[in-house]
């Protein structure tokens, strides 16, 4: 648990191209310490945005939080995630039990941003744990130790969810949803997506534009077995493969057509779309 990558330490600026005013809104929300909810389809840049904002708010700051080792603690939520996993638990070490903070508690103590990715995947009772952190109280009650932990002044809670593909069974409770400033993300325009693809992969602008166009056209088929279309992330993968010497059509085949669907005819149609769009 103590080995953190340089990415999580945010030693370099995570590149992010703003789509609208989300950077200003997030900064204003942080100033007021308002928790933030990010909504959007998979691979559209939610996580990158949080990383970028953490870098801006911590590494670019004049305050002491600049030196916080881990400014961003990310938890990928899953259906077995319990409140204990977030808050902490007693571990048996040697002959004694030792309390171990969970990622949420660590962020609350240290004043980091805690990012709960795909929050609706977690068990519904789990999400209630964050309620007292998201209103004026800003406290985390730790039931097991009897501690009522006041949040560090720099602490901020950010959650994300994908309203598209998740089962409606896993919708966010209104009592949770209505505690957050909500920022909606979507796939960017072709021009912006092309810029992102070119930057992330290093391919020429012309190819990046064509790949962005492929993304737009493939998203027109989203009702055929894949509900979200192709993510910006997958387009970047295709570009990265092309930059690595793979023929662009083949790169699109493995990174896009085969990644988004198992339906052979849809794959073939995507292949034909790629074929006519690429030079």
């Amino acid at each position, binding site marked *: 648990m103590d080995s953190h990558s340089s990415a999580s330490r945010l030693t370099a600026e995570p590149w992010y191209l703003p789509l609208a005013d989300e950077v200003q809104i997030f900064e204003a929300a942080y100033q007021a310490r308002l928790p933030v909810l990010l909504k959007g389809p998979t691979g559209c840049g939610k996580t990158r945005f949080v990383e970028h904002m953490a870098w801006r708010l911590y590494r670019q700051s004049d305050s002491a939080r600049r030196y916080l080792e881990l400014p961003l603690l990310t938890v990928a939520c899953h259906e077995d995630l319990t409140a204990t996993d977030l808050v902490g638990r007693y571990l*048996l070490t040697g002959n004694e039990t030792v309390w171990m903070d969970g990622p949420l508690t660590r962020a609350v103590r240290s004043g980091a941003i805690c990012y709960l990715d795909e929050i609706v995947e977690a068990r519904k009772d789990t999400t209630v744990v964050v309620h007292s952190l998201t209103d004026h109280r800003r406290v985390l009650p730790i039931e097991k130790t009897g501690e009522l932990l006041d949040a560090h002044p720099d602490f901020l809670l950010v959650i994300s969810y994908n309203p598209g593909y998740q089962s409606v*069974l896993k919708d966010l409770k209104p009592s949770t949803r209505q505690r957050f400033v909500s920022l909606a993300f979507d796939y960017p325009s072709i021009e912006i997506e092309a810029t992102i693809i070119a930057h992330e992969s290093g391919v020429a602008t012309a190819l990046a534009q064509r790949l962005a166009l492929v993304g737009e056209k493939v998203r027109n088929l989203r009702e055929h077995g894949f509900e979200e279309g192709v993510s910006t992330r997958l387009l970047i993968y295709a570009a990265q493969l092309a930059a690595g010497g793979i023929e662009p059509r083949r790169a699109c085949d493995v990174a896009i057509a085969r990644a988004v669907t198992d339906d052979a005819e849809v794959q073939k149609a995507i292949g034909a*779309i790629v074929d006519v769009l690429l030079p």
Partner: protein
Amino acid sequence: MTPASGVPDAQRVHFTDIQRFLSLFAQGLAGTFLHVKVIETHGMGAGASRIMDGKSIRLPADIADFTAQQHNLGAYRVAVLRQIGYLVEGTFEFDLAGFLGRHTRPALLRRVFATIEDMRIDAAILRRYPGACGDLDRVLAYVLAKRPRISAMRPVSALVEALLQYSLGAARAPLQAQDWGGLLPGMIDAAAVVQRDGAQVHDSARAALDICAELEKLFRRPPRSPPLFLSTLEEFTRPNESNEALGDEEFSPSDAAGLLVEFRGELILDSAFKHRAGGQFATALQETQSPARGRMADGTGDAATAGVESPRSSAPMLHLPASGGPRSFLYDEWNFHEQSYLAAWCRVYEQRLRGDDFGFIGGVRSRHSTLLKQVRRQFSSIKPQSWQRVRRTSDGDELDLDGVIEAVIDRRTGHDADSHLYVRRDRARRDVSAAFLVDMSASTDFPLPDAGAIKDAHADAPATPPPDSGLYLYGGQEEFPAARSAPKRRVIDVSKDALALMCEALQTLGDSYAIYGFSGDGRQNVEFHVAKDFGDKLTARTWAALAAMQPRRSTRMGAAIRHALSKLAREPAGMKVLIIVSDGYPEDHDYGADRTDREYGIQDTARALQEAERAGVVDFCLTIDPAGQDYLRRMCAESRYLVIDDVTALPRELSKVYRTLTS
């Protein structure tokens, strides 16, 4: 590359083999669903009878013009790209009829405009789809090779043909080498304007007018006066004897017909798509709106639209959303006669039901108060405890004290300690997702004897059919005039009551469930109404949505089952149940060879139920059709259906079936 006269069959590409692929290809590129249809012609000349309506793409039954299969497939792709080209490049926004109608030589203008517009579309295809360059060049070269010799033509026709051949990729110099009064270079220059990026359909129109003005110099006779009223576009394409009698100096419709490029086809725009954006020509036309155009717009007596299959009904749903249309999904259908699936055959439109009858559930509760209590009690008896503690897990909320003591003992005695030391609280839930699929066909409108309803209204109301007559199902309604003011209870009303009771009971049980209705009108318009989806909370809106279920049209059951299965597939539950409530056999006007082809629908439904079984979904058919035994036993196993003789017993039977299936 070489046009082939005797292409082996292995290289021939058949439309039916690639229909779904082309449909997906077209939808992806156009960004909208386009109905890809076959026209019963063969090869690339099939475009000759093409009528474009902006909603469908028409393609030949097969193409074998090239020796390589890949190239024949490429010709299909080009045909799709060209027809999408007209759509996305704004051709449909142009008022062709008005444009031609104001010109003195409409047949000539039509041919020149079509040639230039095709040049514009081809140039746009090359810009938009550079990867299609090879296919397009190959097709154009093939078409060019088939063009007639210019030298044998009269001057005007020769010039238009030269322009046409230039548009197909013929070199400029050899064409210009033939002298037609030095007009060709100017014509080509005027036309080439439309090949630049950003050229609009109005640029094509302007270039066509300029070229026609030049060509006018070659006519020795003045043009006829423009017709006051144009009956249809066909006037321009139909050979006209009086025109032909004018002699060599006239450019007659038959001259125009000789200059038609088969692959490109005749540009006949469906009138429904003409007035989307007003350009200068469209505006000009509006000033001279003719009665004939009015007739075309309402779709009567228009030869140009006669071959266009009627699109989906404009208001097929009960309640259309405020913005955007309903989502649609394509499903295969089992063709019992051919013993094969028809790929992407049915289009299912999914639509939320919305209603305003918020008093519906009150009525249900009062009508079935005893039954409701009974069902609730039965269901609560099978409800599991809400939480359970799972001991000795590797991960959990708290330490398991017994486990910890044992682990410490093990350690002190030098043994390996078990790491499963936690207790976790898991919700002990019934892991069931159930979908109820209700027949909303027109036959559910038939009234049924409901003593209660009649009693509630007027005691002296005329009698409804006797309970054992079965007439409420398939006929005889008019023979039993219903009570004028009594709330007539219909088959659909009982179905709704039964489902409302199920909702109440399932709330007690905590199972995840959804309630859908289905109907439709033809394979392209299967309606799938969502009253309550999985995970929707049971609110007043849900009850109102349920109340809004009304008798609609046909019963294309297979497609509805397949769509319900796709929804169930997304549910995480361990047990999935699909309960179908119907009042008759599956039928639709194109469900089989004709409406009387019952076997087709029955076999498709049987197939869909087999698909359910393969997907691990437990299905069950409840029908209130007394004749249900006859076909249900061919659709599903005996343990998987129930025929209810007394329709009023449906609510009770439905809950019984559900308990049996899931406990």
